[in-house]
């Protein structure tokens, strides 16, 4: 079983088709599978339903697939950073299904875990609950939400071994681990590729069985959406701000 593919295009070969549902990891631009997104753009596949917490920003991340008009529908919790999104949406060219962020995360986790439906208090008594079953448990009202499975999941990891075991770094973990479990096929792009046994098995977040294909992206450029800094206060006695 050879899981490692030479480049993003090869890693997606044979997996893409018009109208499919794709889950894409990341929060904002943090931990997004950008090289795989670019390969999807290059493939020209169309009418995609994309499950992702956000939709990138203009020209970066999933924003690229908006520019190329390959996305028909987004299932997201927040898409406020993207002007192209607003334009296409207002022009009726793009559908959006908003899910509360925790409900979205749990629907994906449930899909991967063989749970077709669960109840959550989130959204009870709001628009989000309309058309969904609501039920009381122990005096509180809950909404029934469905598990979510995608035809393909694309995720970004910090490190992997050739077995497909994945490790994420800091807040770049976010939606990636659940999405890796909820794709009928999961393709991971990884910054560091190791041999089996080189990752401590207690530290593995995504066991290799969830990952069918891997591609090494050692030179991935990572983006910062909101570069917020504090000023260095001067070393004592110098009176300067550096």
């Amino acid at each position: 079983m050879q899981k490692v593919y030479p480049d993003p295009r090869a890693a997606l070969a044979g997996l893409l088709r018009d109208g499919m549902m794709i889950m894409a990891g990341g929060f904002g631009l943090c931990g997004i599978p950008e090289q795989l997104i670019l390969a999807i753009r290059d493939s020209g596949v169309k009418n995609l339903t994309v499950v992702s917490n956000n939709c990138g920003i203009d020209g970066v991340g999933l924003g690229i697939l908006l520019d190329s008009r390959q996305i028909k529908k987004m299932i997201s919790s927040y898409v406020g950073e993207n002007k192209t999104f607003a334009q296409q949406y207002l022009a009726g060219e793009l559908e959006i299904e908003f899910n509360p962020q925790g409900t979205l995360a749990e629907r994906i986790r449930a899909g991967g875990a063989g749970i077709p439906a669960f109840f959550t208090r989130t959204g009870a008594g709001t628009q989000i609950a309309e058309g969904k079953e609501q039920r009381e448990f122990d005096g509180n009202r809950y909404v029934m939400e469905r598990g979510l499975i995608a035809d393909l999941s694309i995720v970004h990891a910090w490190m992997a071994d050739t077995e497909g075991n994945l490790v994420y770094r800091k807040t770049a973990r976010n939606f990636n681990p659940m999405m890796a479990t909820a794709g009928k096929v999961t393709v991971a792009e990884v910054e560091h590729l190791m041999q089996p046994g080189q990752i401590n098995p207690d530290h593995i977040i995504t066991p290799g069985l969830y990952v069918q294909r891997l591609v090494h992206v050692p030179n991935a450029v990572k983006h910062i959406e909101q570069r917020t800094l504090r000023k260095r206060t001067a070393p004592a006695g110098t009176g300067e701000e550096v």
Partner: protein
Amino acid sequence: MAWTREQMAERAAKELRDGFYVNLGIGIPTLVSNYIPRGMSVQLQSENGMLGFGPFPYEGEEDPDLINAGKQTVTEISTTSYFSSADSFAMIRGGHIDLSILGAMQVAENGDLANWMIPGKMVKGMGGAMDLVAGVKKVVVVMEHSAKNEPKLLKNCTLPLTGAGVVDMVITDLGVFTIDKKGGGGMTLIELAPGATLDEIRAKTQASYHIANVL
């Protein structure tokens, strides 16, 4: 002359307790972290998958893999742990966060909260707000008392709800209200900002409210 944004944040910080795990929303709530009393252990949760974070980084030390829920670069501290979005919202939904401080467009006297969409305008999405108000033990809203002379404390919210019966406390530039969201005891004005008067609040508030004896 009523509270400034900084003073509203300072007032909100009085709701912190030693050992609390807290989620702060964007805007004024973010400022609350500047008023954590020295010696008090308060860990900030960021719903994108981080518990325990520090201030913004120094220039050159920012890390694209290390952001908060506002997508801002932040820093790691000694107590930090990372987890997935599913685990993060399990924490929130499961009632393990002690306090959520967030902004609002409207709050109703029964604790209903609206802060995610205005019909007819482009909707950006609710992000994690619906989960936070439904799951966190105590929900404190910090907002201007009124917007362009429209009251924001209402008998009923007119905007689509973020949560039904979820707000415990509202801190505005004019004062502080508690809401008995479970018991049905309604809203009570418990503090006045310096310079604010009962008359001014009455004029700018559509919601019914009790006035605490101390006032």
